[in-house]
């Protein structure tokens, strides 16, 4: 079977502790995974491309920060499978409420590098118009996006639309009260939300072990959500479980939560020094589970890739990096007059007057 046609998680292959997994960390397809080989081969190449592009973009943005071109950057390195696997499994019009680290998902939706960077270069408060991408702007005050998603989903419900709302958050945000409130409200209203938790093990410097005594997916079950735990560094497993649970939600089954077990390979941000709170051996253990090299090993073993394909992706990644740098350095401050246009759907007279007054003021300068 192809992972996108999966509608039940019952038959998905699992590790001994119940975590859904298709591909072992060394790139072997699990023997208990029954798959449509050709369909999976096509899918995996798309997913790999998305992950590679995201990693290259992320690296370039990190370098730009170190070169003084960005004020701050939050790397998504290590979480590419969780993000690409999930965003690829939902419909293009399913509305996403991200945290601030979902660069791989954002790129997948077609958001431009310049738009992803402008906020971090300090030229704008946010990067893009959410509507055409069905992808909300980054949320900095974490866990708020779960409530935004739930509220949006209640609206979707009332519109009678079959859109599903997806929200990304981490283990840290899951500890906040907003997360519990959102899950509870979503459950009691059977709102069409997929809560996608990337448990990357660290809430800045607080380990997940000191945040929760139970796995987050079990907590969600307590609120009445359909929930699953998945190997978040296995892009196929993430795709499969997201496909299944998104269809569950879309068909009126109520909200769901996916806990993707992954790892933040970089610091919390470019201002953070993770060596102060975590060990090299932990990092090495997770490097061995890297989501990108896992797929490379899988594709090689299954005969799904060749040098031409890999070279092609490499060239595309390099072009993306160059474009990222070019667009970053060319970023201009936005026209503040635009701020008046994006606050309210219908601009009232007073706001129009204030805008005109502002424009007159702005134009009153000689230089």
């Amino acid at each position, binding site marked *: 079977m192809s992972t996108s046609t999966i509608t039940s998680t019952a038959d998905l292959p699992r590790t001994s502790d119940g975590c859904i997994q298709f591909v072992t960390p060394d790139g072997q397809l699990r023997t208990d995974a029954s798959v449509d080989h050709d369909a999976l081969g096509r899918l995996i190449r798309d997913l790999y491309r998305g992950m590679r592009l995201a990693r290259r973009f992320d690296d370039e943005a990190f370098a730009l920060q*170190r070169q*003084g*071109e960005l*004020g701050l950057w939050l790397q998504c390195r290590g979480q590419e499978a969780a993000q690409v696997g999930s965003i690829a499994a939902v419909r293009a019009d399913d509305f996403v409420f991200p945290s601030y680290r979902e660069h791989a998902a954002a790129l997948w939706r077609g958001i431009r590098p310049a738009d992803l960077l402008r906020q971090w270069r300090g030229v704008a408060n946010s990067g893009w118009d959410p509507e055409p991408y069905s992808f909300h702007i980054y949320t900095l005050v974490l866990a708020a996006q779960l409530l935004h998603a739930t509220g949006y989903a209640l609206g979707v419900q009332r519109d009678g639309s079959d859109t599903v709302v997806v929200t990304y958050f981490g283990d840290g945000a899951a500890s906040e009260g907003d997360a519990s409130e959102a899950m509870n409200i979503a459950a009691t209203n059977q709102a069409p939300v997929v809560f996608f938790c990337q448990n990357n093990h660290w809430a800045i410097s607080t380990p997940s072990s000191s945040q929760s005594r139970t796995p987050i997916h079990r907590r969600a079950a307590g609120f009445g959500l359909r929930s699953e735990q998945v190997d978040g560094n296995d892009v196929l497993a993430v795709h499969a479980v997201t496909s299944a649970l998104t269809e569950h939600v879309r068909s009126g089954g109520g909200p769901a939560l996916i806990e993707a077990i992954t790892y933040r390979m970089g610091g919390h941000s470019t201002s953070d020094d993770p060596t102060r709170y975590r060990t090299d051996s932990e990092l090495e253990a997770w490097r061995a589970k890297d989501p990108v090299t896992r797929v490379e090993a899988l594709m090689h073993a299954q005969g799904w890739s060749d040098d031409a394909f890999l070279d092609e992706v490499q060239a595309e990644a390099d072009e993306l990096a*160059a474009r990222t740098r070019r667009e970053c350095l060319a970023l201009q401050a936005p026209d503040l007059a635009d701020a008046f246009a994006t606050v309210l759907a219908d601009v009232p007279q007073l706001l129009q007057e204030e805008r005109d*007054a502002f424009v*007159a*003021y702005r134009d*009153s300068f000689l230089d």
Partner: protein
Amino acid sequence: MTIQQFRLPDVGEGLTEAEIVTWRVAPGDPVRLNDVLVEIETAKSLVELPSPYDGVVQSLLVDEGQTVDVGSPIIAIRVDSEADATPDDTTGTRAAEPTTVPHPVGAAAAERTAVLVGYGVSAQEPTRRRRRRALSARSADTARPADTARSADTARSADTARVPHPSRPPVLTKPPLRKLAKDLGVELAEVRGSGPDGRVTRQDVLDHTARRVLPTPGAPGLAAQSAAQSSWSTASTADDAVRQDERVPVRGVRKATAAAMVASAFTAPHVTEFLTVDVTGTVELVDRLRKDPAFAGVRVGPLLVASLALLDAVRNHPDINARWDQENQEIVRFADVNLGIAAATPRGLLVPNLKASQDLSVRELAVALNELTVSAREGRTRPADLAGGTITITNIGVFGIDAGTPILNPGEAAILCLGAVRRTPWVVNEQVVPRWTTQLSLSFDHRLVDGELGSRVLAHVGRFLEDPMWGLAMR
């Protein structure tokens, strides 16, 4: 060929400096974009800095171990051309002689200077204040179209007087002054600003008001101003502040309080006595009652014990619970003790009293005091509660005050004042120990109460508060 200098960036949101720990390159080394150049240590972490250029290292500008400010050039890199900074664009003309470009890569970045937060500001952005187009000369009664006002020809004319116009830039001033202007009905655009950049100051608004209102005797709301005040104001210069004193009509409780205090203070000759007492026993009793289930839901404080003490003093010295009847030239000994409690309420000072409080049990008294103070605070004291008081307690201790000389509630002979209960050094058994103490003061009407009686009453209250268990036992 150009020489690019790489300046130390702020890699951690607000860092000002970093130490150069290890150079990973040496002069003559080729470097590619994003190759690690150097390891630096900031206040936050060890950080590797990647090269923003493709090229050859020309020179290291800072030695290892040195701490440098953010924004200082740390390395010079020879690049084929500026365009080489981006690997996708390899075209560019080679200059015969290297030229030094002391800024980061790219056309935009080349004009940027390092600031506290990582990315720089454009060098084109002026460090000086931006110049405004001068507002064109006009008299206050000739409004002109905005586009004419901003035309280049008239823009530099000298007069910067402002007139109101919908499309004009807003007047520079502070929000409280906008409110002040609005409250005073002043059109801010008509006010000449004397502050920096023509900013309108508080004084400007007030001056404007003075100029505007004074020649207009019939102005609404100013009808009550006397001719004298107008002439005074007219005589003053425009620069004088018009700071008007507020005049509040005396009504209601304020009026009643004033009348009562004048009547009391200037008819009854007041004497006030003071006594400092160790009220540790009272504090302990209060604590005990607060924990007692029988007093659940009842607020208990030192005022309760003081009330018990005063009631006990009255029992022993009934002459204190009396009044001077000037008309009949008699002293009236009250049958009941209607214990008044001075209360600060939303309406003002009220002294509601507890009728026949001598008959109340300790708990009943506590409940009654509760009810009385809550009613007073909520402004629902009944008129009957305010009439017929015979003796009063005022508790200024709740304001942290030690003692006062209270004025008698008219028609009463005594008022007891409670001070704040404080932890103070006290001599007990020839040892200085910390104890809870308070100051009591008692004002009394010397027409009917002599120093002896007043002293005995105050001493009795003090003794009760020192040993309330004894007081209750003797009740």
